[in-house]
């Protein structure tokens, strides 16, 4: 550490510096806030945060705007105008907390006694969504978490889902200390989006300094693509085709996979019967492999097993079978790079060359010793995120990414993709090894996440998880299904929505459906900092404190142990409360805080609390008290919340053996047998309950296969009149459109030539007679929004790009009317939903029509 860095810890100024962590996205970067006379006056990075080293992004540095915003809600509000609608004034009157909470609690009690599923709990406070989701579970509703305004649009659900079942990775990180070749697909890792931006930016810059080659696959010249060694412009929603062509090169042309690892460390040699299920040993029930040396089938864990076959056709017990690897080889046979080019627009020669470069960089067979332990060294990563995954075929595409990484033996090893697990470590506990199932395959832990939803009919989940058992969330479907519950088989209709830090108009789709759904509910409650597009439909608004006035205790790093505090740097300025305290209060008043099934018990489970440091089930705690117990529990009684308030964090790197190969001797799936099995079960249930005949619902079970295969997105075949694929993207100056209220960030965003525009290819524009700065109507089947054309050389010719950070139509004077909304063009229906992993199709077809008359004036 340089002298300058050490010196920076002192900081200048006359005020008192208070440590905390940022909460303007979910990366929890350490900050210090200077307070003078009870006013926060400056935010800087905390040089004692070993994850960020005191660096911070534009949003973090501009965070005071949240606190000082004159639009903040200062007291609970209750609607007086019965009419609800877009920009219809709700006529809010001020209320006391008691009046507002009692009104809500009375409704909660009634619903809970009747049918808890009639409550939709849409809970999405970035840094504590798992804790808040536990509130919905304790209430008893199936509609909790990301329900109604899902991350199915905002996030990369397939990454979480497929990452978890492949190697326990809720999120994957490239191990940049060793990596030499990185391919980013629809991801800006290290350039502004994806996880852990501040640290990733430094690590990737360092790695590139050391010679890492960066290839970026993206329809648009993203920041990453603009800085990359090579940009491969791809047609939107066709990344799956690119990856299938890539796999084809690895298994058919180059044969450059890690065969030794596939035999030992994966289910690649497991034999599949004609039904594509594992052929099992009649005595033990264990999957069989074919030992080439012995010339016979053996259980996968047979002690004297010599050389399990990866290829060939065998007959075992009279049944024809093939190793799972051979199945992949067969299935991928026609997906040549030339085939891929015809779909994704990336030249076959480029796919072939990049795949071969990648395979060579993977250095199969190499090892590296770390702390005296030899690990495989696989310094090549393929990392995707929302751009690849937020499509109906996104889960198949993510399966294809993991297929590549499993083929090369590059998961959980130095240089490859390392897992951030969803284990107790997030709340301060120790990293946990992954479990192994009786079939020898890894079993991930997934605190707070549903990796499997049991089928039930009538269905319970308004997201239709009952018909999509592996979907992490399909929250965007809730406004659709609740409008016609009987059509989907429901025997109830929801009555109440609680929205906590979410805004369905900016994160779901088709506004008319969202609007109609919001109007239909008896009671809409919003926990919010400002009034926004969605609070125009709220009956009660509960004001939340900003992140500079509330507590948190979390670990968002991928390779550190310990906790980081978020704390009030000043007392709440207005009559506001921490959102978690509001949830505790509501649980108390509605009678589900205490007891074995209460919110306290749910928090004990979620936070991994155990005696003597656990919540009693018979009393009420403040959220700060909960965090104090959490701190004590995970430090063995050594540290309490006060310690963290003073020191900020106790983050320290985990040992290498707690970072790498956390699956140990559990095998990773090259063949996604759990997906195949879930699909078979779903198909049986859909037939048994005659869902298609009863409701006319065609649930597509075809994607539930053990290996990825090509499935087009519905946007590829539709709407010839709409000649652009419109995509959305993220800037490092925005967190969704939540940051659009920040005058510092908005001033900078407006200085950017294209950030607030609808950006298209300059050559395409010329052909269509569009010019830079033209005001246009962006028209789709679902919306007609105004935008300003921006031209660039850096975008696929059929693509239009709109930042997801703007386009607000709230009453907020800073946010209102700047930029344009992409998500208004997204349909909300089953055809545009990837029900396998749970994702919305986030590409839409639009056309750009030059505005005329007064509409043409730039706003």
């Amino acid at each position, binding site marked *: 550490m*340089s*002298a*300058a860095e050490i*010196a*920076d810890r*002192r*900081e*200048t*100024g*006359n*005020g008192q510096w208070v440590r905390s962590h940022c909460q303007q996205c979910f990366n929890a970067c350490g900050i210090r806030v200077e307070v003078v006379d009870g*006013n926060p*006056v*400056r*935010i*800087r*990075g905390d*040089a004692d945060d070993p994850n960020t080293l*005191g*660096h*911070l*992004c*534009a949003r973090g*540095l*501009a965070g*005071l*705007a949240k606190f*000082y*915003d*004159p639009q903040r809600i200062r007291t609970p509000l209750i609607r007086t105008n019965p009419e609800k609608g877009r920009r219809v004034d709700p006529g809010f009157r001020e209320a006391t907390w008691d009046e507002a909470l009692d009104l809500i609690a009375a409704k909660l009690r009634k619903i809970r006694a009747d049918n808890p599923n009639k409550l939709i709990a849409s809970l999405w406070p970035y840094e504590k969504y798992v804790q808040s989701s536990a509130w919905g579970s304790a209430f008893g509703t199936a509609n909790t978490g990301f329900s109604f305004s899902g991350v199915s649009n905002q996030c990369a659900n397939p990454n979480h889902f497929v990452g978890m079942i492949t190697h326990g990775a809720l999120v994957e990180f490239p191990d940049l200390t060793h990596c030499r070749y990185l391919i980013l697909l629809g991801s800006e890792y290290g*350039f*502004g989006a994806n996880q852990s931006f*501040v640290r990733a*930016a*430094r690590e*990737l*810059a360092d790695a*590139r*300094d050391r010679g890492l080659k960066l290839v970026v696959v993206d329809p648009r*010249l993203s*920041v990453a693509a*603009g*800085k990359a060694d090579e*940009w*491969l*412009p791809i047609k939107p929603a066709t990344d799956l085709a690119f990856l299938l062509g890539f796999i084809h090169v690895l298994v058919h042309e180059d044969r450059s996979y890690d065969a030794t690892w596939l035999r030992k460390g994966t289910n690649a040699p497991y034999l599949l019967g004609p039904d594509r299920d594992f052929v099992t040993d009649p005595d033990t029930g264990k999957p069989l492999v074919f030992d080439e040396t012995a010339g016979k089938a053996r259980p996968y864990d047979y002690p004297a097993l010599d050389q399990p076959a990866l290829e060939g056709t065998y007959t075992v017990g009279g049944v024809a079978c093939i190793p799972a690897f051979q199945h992949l080889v067969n299935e991928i046979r026609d997906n040549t790079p030339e085939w891929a080019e015809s779909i994704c627009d990336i030249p076959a020669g480029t796919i072939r060359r990049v795949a071969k470069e990648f395979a060579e960089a993977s250095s199969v067979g190499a090892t590296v010793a770390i702390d005296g332990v030899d690990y495989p060294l696989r310094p090549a990563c393929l990392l995707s995120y929302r751009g690849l995954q937020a499509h109906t075929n996104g889960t198949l595409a993510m399966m294809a990414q993991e297929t590549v990484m499993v083929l090369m033996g590059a998961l959980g090893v130095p240089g490859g993709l390392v897992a951030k697990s969803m284990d107790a470590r997030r709340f301060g506990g120790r990293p946990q090894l992954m479990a192994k199932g009786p079939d020898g395959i890894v079993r991930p832990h997934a605190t707070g996440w549903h990796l499997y939803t049991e089928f039930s009919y009538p269905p319970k989940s308004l997201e239709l998880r009952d018909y999509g058992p592996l979907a992490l969330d399909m929250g965007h479907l809730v406004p659709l299904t609740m409008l016609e519950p009987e059509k989907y088989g429901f025997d109830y209709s929801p009555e109440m929505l609680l929205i906590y830090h979410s805004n369905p108009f900016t994160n779901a789709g088709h506004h008319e459906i969202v609007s109609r759904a919001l109007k239909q509910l008896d009671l809409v409650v919003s926990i919010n900092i400002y009034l926004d597009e969605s609070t125009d439909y709220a009956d009660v608004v509960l004001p939340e404190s900003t992140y500079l006035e509330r507590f948190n205790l979390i670990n968002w790093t991928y390779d550190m142990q310990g906790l980081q505090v978020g704390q009030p740097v000043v007392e709440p300025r207005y009559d506001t409360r921490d959102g978690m305290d509001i949830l505790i209060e509501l649980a108390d008043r509605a009678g589900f805080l205490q007891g074995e099934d209460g919110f306290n018990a749910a928090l004990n489970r979620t936070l991994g609390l155990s005696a003597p440091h656990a919540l009693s089930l018979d009393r009420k705690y403040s959220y700060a008290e909960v965090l104090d117990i959490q701190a004590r529990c995970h430090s063995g009684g050594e540290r309490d919340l006060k310690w963290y308030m003073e020191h900020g964090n106790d983050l320290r790197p985990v040992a290498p053996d707690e970072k790498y190969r956390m699956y140990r001797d559990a095998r990773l799936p090259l063949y996604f047998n759990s997906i195949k099995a879930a699909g078979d079960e779903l198909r049986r249930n859909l037939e048994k309950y005659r869902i298609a005949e009863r409701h006319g619902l065609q649930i597509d079970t075809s994607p539930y296969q053990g290996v990825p295969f090509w499935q087009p997105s519905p946007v590829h075949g539709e709407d010839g009149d709409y000649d652009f694929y419109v995509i959305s993207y993220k800037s*490092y*100056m925005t967190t969704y459109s939540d940051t659009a209220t920040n*005058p*510092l*960030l908005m*001033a*900078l965003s407006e200085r950017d030539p294209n950030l607030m525009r609808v950006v298209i*290819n300059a*050559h395409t524009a010329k052909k269509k007679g569009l010019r830079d700065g033209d005001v246009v109507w962006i028209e789709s089947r679902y919306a007609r929004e105004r935008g300003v054309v921006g031209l*660039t*050389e*850096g*975008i696929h*010719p059929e693509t239009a790009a709109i930042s997801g950070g703007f386009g607000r139509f709230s009453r907020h004077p800073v946010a209102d009317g700047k930029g344009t909304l992409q998500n208004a063009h997204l349909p909300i229906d089953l055809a545009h939903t990837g029900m396998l992993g749970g994702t919305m199709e986030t590409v839409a077809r639009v056309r750009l029509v030059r505005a005329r008359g007064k509409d043409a004036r730039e706003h």
Partner: protein
Amino acid sequence: MARWGMVFSLARCIGCNACVVACKTENRLPDDIYFTRTFVEEVGDFPSVRRVYIPTLCNHCEDAPCEKACPSGATYTRDDGIVMVDQDRCIGCSACAVACPYDARSMIEEPSNNRGLFGGAEAPAAEPDVVDRWRAGTVVKCDFCSRRVDQGLSPACVAVCPTEARIFGDLDDPDSAPSRLVRSRNGAPPLPEKNTKPKVFYIDY
């Protein structure tokens, strides 16, 4: 006595504007005034196109045209090479701003710095001495965060930079990070033809 200078790595800069916001909030600058900016340039034609982000600030020239142009003596160079503007002596003639080939100087038209972030009367979100620092009718510019430097800190933009694209240090010390980078990576000053001898250099261009 040190001779402070800065190196920008164009390979490392990703244009994220953390530096710009750090500077704005460190100095509580009026809305339209920026001491440091990042420019973005698209280079090439589809599909062979890339983007360059170019950070800029006052170059603290050794042979500073602004200082020569200043009739009131408000612009001066400290012993450690930081080019300063004395707000008390500045008469607002803008001769320095015209003389600067880098567009690094701005006239404060109105003292909007005393307003809050939202332009109203809410607390200004800055220390009182920072709020009162700028006067309407004077010219202002980056001073390498001289008050931080005097306390042994790096400028705010350097301290926060996520990619460590800004490297600050003593150019008279041959072992300082900026000296080594200028030597080993062909550090180039901006607009060398102007002969201003900047103490800011670009590498990895």
